[in-house]
């Protein structure tokens, strides 16, 4: 292992023997279920194991890149850590408040104004009313859409929408940040700003788990890389080394 944060640092995330299976049930109505049952056919399910016995320990203050090609289970792992998905086997432990930037803007409603969405989303991401009020100015300033904040979000351009959503998410101040492909938000200056914000969070000792297909960027940003292949951790090392292996260079 290239990275070895001091053993005394407490764990931020522990993934212990995690198995996650997906069952695709092909019937979605009672009628079909009953029809199958009458014909004594069992409900057809395809099972697909997305994560097979994943074990990980991430310590506080680490910035970890979850790497892997499409379908390797990165996003599933992130969703399990965030609590959206429930493990089929094994367990996950998290210390402190966790915020997933898994899909920014999930809680946004097009018919509400920017301001209302900031409050609603802040609360969805676990902030209290006082916390949102305290950070409101900062959130709006970061998103650079001051003059549109009282307009309904449906009139926003997609860039404006994502900037506001991202801005709310990075101001939630959790202990553990899960970031999935969101650094591709907005134009280049805004992207740079987002990266700066992520670095700031890193410097302040937050734990970050980042999924991205921009390999160079994450390798530079993170101090540990974990490579998933078909739901199995195959490498856990310095991120540039992991990226080289992914590219077949090492």
């Amino acid at each position, binding site marked *: 292992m290239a990275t070895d944060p001091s053993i005394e640092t407490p764990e931020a995330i522990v993934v212990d023997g995690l198995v996650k299976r997906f069952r695709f049930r092909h019937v979605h109505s009672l009628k079909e279920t009953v029809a199958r049952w009458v014909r004594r056919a069992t409900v057809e399910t395809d099972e697909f194991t997305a994560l097979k016995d994943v074990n990980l320990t991430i310590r506080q203050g680490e910035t970890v890149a979850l790497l892997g090609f499409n379908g390797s289970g990165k996003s599933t792992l992130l969703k399990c850590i965030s609590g959206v998905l429930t493990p089929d086997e094994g367990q996950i432990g998290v210390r402190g408040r966790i915020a997933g930037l898994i899909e920014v803007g999930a809680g946004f409603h097009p018919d509400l104004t920017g301001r209302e969405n900031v*409050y609603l989303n802040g609360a969805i991401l676990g902030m209290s009313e006082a916390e949102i009020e305290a950070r409101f100015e900062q959130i709006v300033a970061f998103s650079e859409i001051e003059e549109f904040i009282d307009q309904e979000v449906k009139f926003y351009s997609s860039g404006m929408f994502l900037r506001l959503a991202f801005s709310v998410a990075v101001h939630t101040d959790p202990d553990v940040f899960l970031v999935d492909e969101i650094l591709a938000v907005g134009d280049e200056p805004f992207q740079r700003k987002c990266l700066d914000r992520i670095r700031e969070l890193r410097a302040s000792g937050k734990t970050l788990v980042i999924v991205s297909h921009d390999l160079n960027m994450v390798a530079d940003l993170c101090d540990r890389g974990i490579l998933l292949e078909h739901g199995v951790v195959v490498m856990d090392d310095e991120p540039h080394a992991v990226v080289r292996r992914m590219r077949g260079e090492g």
Partner: protein
Amino acid sequence: MTEVSPRPLPEGMERPGVARGLLTLVSHRYLLTLLVRKELRVRYQASVLGLAWSYVKPGAQFAVFFFVMGQFLQLSRSIPPYAIFLFSGIVVVNLFSEILGNATRSVVGNAPLVRKIFLPRQLFPLSTVLVALVHFLPQLVILVIGALVSGWRPDPAALGAALLGAVLVIVFALALGLLFGAVNVAFRDTENTVDLILMVAVWFSPVLYNIGLVRDHFGADSWLTRLYEANPLTIAVELFHRAFWYPAAEPGVRDGALIDHVMWRGVIALVVCMGLLWVGDRVFTRLSRNFAQEL
């Protein structure tokens, strides 16, 4: 399904995404109020009448029933003041319908959130209760005004009956709403089934006619009458009749117009519905683990 793992987590760590029961939502009060506000804002977006629609609908319903059932079919003769009798039943059934109908759709309707962010999922059905109450209160005000005009003078039993009836119908509707809302994630037929239930609910509870007709038709001791009388919605409607219609009605009309021992039945039904709510909450909590992947 999560088995309790033999290895304990390091101290101070928590399992993410563990579904808990309804009672834990107290800590999410703020989010709940925002969800309710959102719901109301979105529902009346770009509508001129806005919240006034919550008066128009029961108003129209009342007018239709009053003239067709009360006047044309002459149901009003036996139970004056019929307008109060009718409207006190309508507000109960409307409260029931709105909670149950919206709670059933609440999880599927919030699919983008459920799929992506972990929140206590009971928030969605619970917020439908609060939205329904926002619509219920103005109707209740109209009912009180109408009753006062018709000579209603409240007694303590009437106020108790109103409170008991409202709590009963909320608990009953939320209990069913949690059950149906959870099942609806996997089986979308549920919402159609619920629509069917809601369509017949107003006819199979004593909203338009008094319960005496049911007894006369089926016989006081038949199991159909028993079944009809055991329906918590019937009891809630009768509690509202006891609260608003009974004190306004002539003594001669009152006798035998309501179900017997309405208060006691109300208390028993409430206890039963509390049990049902507990079951609904447990089922919802259990099924909620798979919501994200089933949606």
